[in-house]
């Protein structure tokens, strides 16, 4: 099954961390991504810019709206995702618990329902 590991945490800059403070976390992520890749379960990963840079659009109210900032203003932000392909939730749980951000945020494990490729269109991964 394919899962998204959604990393939610307070942004480093918001809690006053410097680049230097974050160096051990970067090293931990280097190792984590290497481990996922070596295990052959990594589909992809994207770590997101700070929400300072985020823009949200919606037409829910009928008119086009463009909003400065994230959808839903919570303390913990969606900080990035890992997409992995493993057999079941127990495997996904293990990888999520090894995610470095598990130490300072929370990791949501969400099964992927559909995915898209140019040659296949939408399909169940």
């Amino acid at each position, binding site marked *: *099954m394919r899962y998204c590991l959604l990393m939610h945490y307070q942004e480093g800059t918001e809690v006053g961390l410097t680049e230097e403070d974050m160096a051990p976390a970067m090293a931990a992520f280097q190792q984590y991504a290497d481990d996922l890749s070596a295990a052959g379960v990594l589909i992809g990963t994207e770590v997101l810019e700070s929400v300072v840079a985020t823009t949200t659009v919606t037409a829910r109210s009928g008119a086009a709206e463009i909003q400065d900032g994230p959808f839903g203003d919570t303390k913990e932000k969606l900080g990035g995702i890992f997409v992995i392909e493993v*057999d*079941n*939730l*127990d495997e996904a749980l293990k990888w999520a618990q090894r995610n470095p951000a598990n130490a300072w945020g929370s990791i949501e494990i969400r099964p992927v329902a559909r995915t898209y490729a140019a040659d296949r269109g939408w399909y*169940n991964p």
Partner: protein
Amino acid sequence: MSRLREDQQARDRVAQVARDSYGRLLAVLVAPTRDIAAAEDGLADALERALARWPDDGIPANPEGWLLTVARNRLRDVWKASGYRMTEPLDEIEYASTPLDDDMPAVPDRRLELMLVCAHPAIVPNIRTPLMLQSVLGVEAAAIATAFAVAPAAMTQRLVRAKKRIRNAGIPFVLPEREDLAERLPAVLEAVYGAYAIDWQLAPPGAPIESLSAEALHLGLVLAELLPDEPEVLGLAALVCLSEARRPARRTAEGGFIPLDEQDTKLWDEVLIARGEALLQRAHDYWRPGRFQYEAAIQSAHCTRAKQGKADLNALRKLHRAVLRVAPSLGAAVASAAVDGEIDGPEAGLRALDAIGDPAVQGFQPAWTTRAHLLAEVGRPAEAADAYRRAIELTADPGVAEYLSRRLRRMTC
């Protein structure tokens, strides 16, 4: 044999197989797709077909195998029609249409996997016991709702949601590695204990749930058979055996409640007691005590009354303290206060009751019953009567209410 009798015999056999083998059959059907709801439908279809066919065709030599094959074929049709997404291709999970012959292999036992799924950490704790009752024992949602004092529609909805989650979140149907199993086991024990700890007597007479304490015993024994070297598993099985052994003495023929110290020990089931004691001894030999072993030892200390005429009070006090330490609960605190009252006198018992800090004690029937007994003993009948009245208000069990009313009358006349 008359046609009517043959029909009846076939129907009885279907009912018996449904009762004895439900969980085993369901577990095998669920395994390939984790879809409990679909497997339940398939099994229900197979049981229905057995009711229609067995009276004419005769009871097959391997009824479980027959049901499994029919249910599998039915599920396969459903999957094919819906392009179902499976973890394994159909062929690999032996869903080729097996002929309905009589030398089908024995149904493998995957109930432990099923129990682990029901008590998975990703499943909310309050639905684990209901899930287990329904999938391992085949109890109807309505009966479970009665036992848990929840509206049937609400219970059904919670069960449906949990099953959907098991299927869609990818909760695996596997036996975890040894060290992972140790981590996962407490939740399974808790859920089995939940099945046993339900006050089955709350169910109306004749309700399908009535005989389920025996099924909870079965669940405990199955677990002990599957994991024979886990002391807490053995402890839980011992606990259920020793407690279930006293069931015949717990009620009058009219359903009236008989308290433990007034029970006729001749009605206690000696075989079950011996079985429980043996399980407890086996658990004890590992020297890894735990909550269920302590609770089983409490039951065992009560059972000594059958042989020695008196429960072992000092052992009981030590054991209650141990339970309060490892698994504090209101029930354990009240039981411990009652033992204090028996050993050190009713005043001490009342002091121990007063010392319980949990505000929920105000709405806890056993606490009021114990208080009433202790107040009666110290010679404060008016206060005892009030406590009995409060206890009567708090019980939904007519047998218990009748027993408490009798005690109350003694205070007031």
